[in-house]
């Protein structure tokens, strides 16, 4: 009987000690902020398009890290982003919810534009230039192709044009594409 008690006491004492240590550690080394959200945000393409159902890339990143939102909701990022997210978060890759969208730019039909400035307000990255009652134009290098300016335009003068590949940004194709499927 005494050996039982000794065993119980020894183990109990050790457990008390380690429990206290763990309790202390959990209070003392609590991680402030959320570095994983930053990392997710880093991967997202920053189009701020909201096609994921969240009002921008940062909110989507927060939703992924905090609410466990799905990682396949970003059409502009496509499969690349999904796979990077899967790698980062150690989740299973899942097929995209929507079809991947080719990169495109907003183009304002300058003949139709009435200069209402509604699109300027909608643009999340200030890529549209113009003033009230004057024709607007899109700064091509800054447009993220988010399509947020399409809806507010009262005269439907904005269209999305896919970005054509030209010689300067052309790169060699995947050689496996030509591999004869034997």
């Amino acid at each position, binding site marked *: 009987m005494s050996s039982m008690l000794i065993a119980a006491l020894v183990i109990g004492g050790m457990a008390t000690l380690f429990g206290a240590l763990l*309790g202390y550690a959990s209070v003392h080394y609590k991680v402030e902020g959320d570095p994983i959200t930053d990392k997710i945000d880093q991967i997202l393409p920053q189009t701020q398009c909201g096609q994921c159902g969240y009002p921008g890339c940062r909110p989507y990143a927060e939703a992924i890290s905090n609410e466990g939102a799905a990682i396949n909701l970003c059409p502009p990022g496509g499969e690349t982003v999904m796979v990077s997210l*899967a790698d980062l978060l150690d989740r*299973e*890759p899942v*097929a995209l919810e929507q079809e991947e969208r080719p990169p495109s730019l907003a183009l304002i039909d300058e003949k139709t534009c009435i200069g209402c400035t509604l699109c300027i307000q909608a643009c999340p990255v200030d890529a549209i230039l113009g003033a009230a009652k004057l024709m607007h134009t899109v700064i091509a290098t800054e447009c993220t192709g988010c399509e947020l300016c399409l809806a507010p335009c009262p005269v439907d003068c904005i269209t999305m044009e896919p970005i054509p590949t030209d010689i300067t940004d052309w790169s060699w194709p995947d050689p496996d594409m030509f591999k004869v499927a034997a």
Partner: protein
Amino acid sequence: MIEYNKIVNDGLWRNNAGLVQLLGLCPLLAVTTTTINGLGLGIATTLTLIISNLMVSSIRNFITSEIRIPVFVMIIACTVTGIELAMNAWFHELFLVLGIFIPLIVTNCAIIGRAEAFASRNSLLPSLLDAISMGIGFTLILILLGGMREIFGFGTLLAQSDLMFGEGASWMTMTIIEDYRGFLLAILPPGAFIGLGLIIAAKNRIDMRVSAAPLSNMLPQ
């Protein structure tokens, strides 16, 4: 709403501890030289799973997150020690065969994994169901692998049934191949790896047949 169907399906097939999660491989590979060994370890593991899942599930609301792992480990260790002692007392021959692999159940990640991933988040009934289906899923693999290795290695099936079911069960032993000279590879560890690999391949093959979308579409290229 808890989907009981899903729990059972996960344990037995979709998320099988031995084939998909690949947990508890050390005892899985070492013990399965015969069907009876596999069955014995399977039952011990299932029992441990059931007890630990039930206990974890019932105490889950009292445990703060920082000490949950030590508490789970403590519960599992106590359960396994109890089972080990009980087997030593009542199934001594089998205990001698399974040897060190009974205490090793403590470190079987399948058990701590279920405690952490399932029992600590669900109420008693689903936890019990999860333990049973996970345990049975694991046991089935043990029996299957044990059976394969026994047939190829010794040419028999269910040899030494008496260890588990008492003297009266000797009739269960079947000689599949008469005058078999034995194929050592099946009994040695490489045979276990090859056998498990083949079972996993078979499972993936069946899954591929069942689902219309081939697996390769889902994986990053």
